């Protein structure tokens, strides 16, 4: 039960289990973002959920094509901001009014006005760190090992190639059926990626 929940959470990060025989998934290359977005739409409507596109830059409209909702980074950032603001308020109040009060020209030990710059700075600092930390957490990064790196063609995912990957852990995954669907959607080439350190290219 717990294992299943962990697997599901990992799947939202794009981290999938490979099959017992070592098949991690199918990796299809598409010629351009236009074909890729249509393919993603098709894969999603065919009921696949453990799939992702890999592109050198974010593609406008892909979230909707893949059926993904809003990113949750915003909530994490908000929590960070509240923590920062709370810490700054507490820090300034406790150090100057409680722990070591010093009377300077009869000014109050603690007041909001002179505390605002530090409140602002720490709010921004914590929000930013939580945003970035949250982004890496939701993305499951850093992820040094990824079976997709066994594919030679995949090195071009950060250059000029557009890939769609369907993981073997998807309940609809079937080596032949899924492959023919990817080809119908216009794939230039399809590879079977194995978790055992290799990837074989299936030429049409």
């Amino acid at each position, binding site marked *: 039960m717990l294992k299943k929940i962990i697997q599901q959470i990992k799947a939202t990060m794009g981290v999938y289990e490979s099959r017992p025989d070592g098949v991690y998934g199918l990796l299809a290359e598409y*010629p*351009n973002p236009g074909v890729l977005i249509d393919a*993603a739409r098709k894969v999603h409507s065919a009921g696949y959920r453990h799939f992702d596109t890999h592109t050198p*830059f974010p593609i*406008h409209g892909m*979230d909707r094509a893949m059926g993904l909702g809003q990113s949750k980074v915003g909530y994490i950032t908000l929590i960070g901001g509240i923590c920062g603001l709370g810490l700054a308020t507490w820090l300034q109040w406790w150090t100057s009014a409680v*722990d070591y009060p010093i009377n300077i020209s009869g*000014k109050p030990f603690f007041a909001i006005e002179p505390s605002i710059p530090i409140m602002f700075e720490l709010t921004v600092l914590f929000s*930013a760190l939580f945003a970035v930390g949250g982004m890496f957490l939701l993305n499951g990064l850093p992820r040094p090992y990824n079976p997709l790196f066994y594919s030679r063609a995949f090195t071009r*995912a950060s250059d000029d190639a557009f890939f769609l990957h369907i993981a073997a852990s998807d309940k609809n995954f079937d080596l032949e059926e899924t492959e023919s669907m990817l080809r119908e959607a216009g794939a230039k080439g399809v590879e079977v990626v194995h978790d055992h350190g290799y990837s074989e290219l299936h030429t049409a």
Partner: protein
Amino acid sequence: MASSTNKTVTLPAGADPPLVTGNLGFHDITQLVSYHTEKRPPSAWYMAIAVSSTLLCVLLIMIAYLVWNGIGVWGNNNPVGWGWPIVNFVFWVGIGHAGTLISAILFLFRQRWRTAINRSAEAMTLFAVICALLFPTIHVGRIWVIYWTLPIPNQMEMWPQFKSPLLWDVFAVSVYFIVSLVFWYVGLVPDLATLRDRARNALRRRVTGFFALGWTGANRHWRNYEKTYLLLAALATPLVLSVHSVVSFDFAVSIIPGWHTTIFPPYFVAGAIFSGFAMVMTLMILARKIYGIQNIITMDHLEKMAIIILLTGSMVGFAYITEFFIAWYSQVEYEQYAFLNRATGPYAWAYWTMMSCNLLFPQFFWIKRLRRSIPFLFITSIIVNIGMWFERFVITVISLHRDFLPSSWDYFNPTIVDVLTFAGSFGLFMTLFLIFLRYLPMVAIAEVKMVLPESDPHYYHKHDSEGEEH
């Protein structure tokens, strides 16, 4: 993959000129930018690093000399307790404003031309802020207890004074540095993955792979990534505006005539953007020429920066004149004297240098031909930064050298240590910037690809299904 993209599309009438010229495809951009981190740098790079690292050594020697002897080796005297170190601090912080402004504010305003210059401008920001942080650190004298400025429990059981603008400054500049660094790194991750995937030798693949964090360009990742980038931009925007405002509080919260004015925060911020853009322009004109990336950092980019320099320069000039008006209008004798003394006193030469560099020279940018002339842009960008250094000198030194009590009036002279430390800080700045140019992609590869029309799925759909909403 040039073959898959149709390159012969003509622009509709009245469309903006393309942001990337020369008909570059996705792969061409990757190649053009990554290539420079993979091959031996051009000989101009070696000459530049020789000069800058020499200056860096001068800086280190000067700091060692200073720490050994104390800050008496500088020209700071009584009443000018804040001499060149604070002038240099404000100067460098100001330069450090352009990068985050370009990456955050222009991002929120959807100014897509920023993609060509944001990476190097952000790097420049970080290095300028490092130079800026150096000066107050060594100015405190007992550098080994600098940690007293941070709220760290210590053996004296004392805390920093949170009501002091100087402490606000510590927080503002440190937070600005951390947030800018994080912003820069987040932007770098996809490009580091590009370098990793292109790497031929194992060491290079390991190092770039370590910092790329296993990035694969997955859309699930881009989704969170883009949201984070937007949030960081939204957070950094008020931060950029706040940093120089807080720096100006160092002056404005005191009661010295010439410092005690409410115009300081906006006036400082405008000046910071002004000098920052000038520095970006100086560096970009050199870098695009040496590295042959004129198709990515185009003439249009330089012209847009010139317009921002013109705008902020006019704002700064307006503030200079407003200060005089308010001094007269306030009817405060000390205030009036402070400003009269600026323009006609013993430092009139500094004041008029500032006025001509900042108020006069950028006004030539009203002329389109001059905005598009590389030699003129280059010279003006340097003049602007000379002017902005003098602005900080005028504010810091002139206001202090004649205070309320004529018996304590004095003239400030810098020493050779002052001059060499300032020159050395350029060595630090340039050395870091040259190392950046050598090892990291100086243009945001993924972001530049996004501004190509071929990156939009609609580009491929519009021929067969006109107007269909995706």
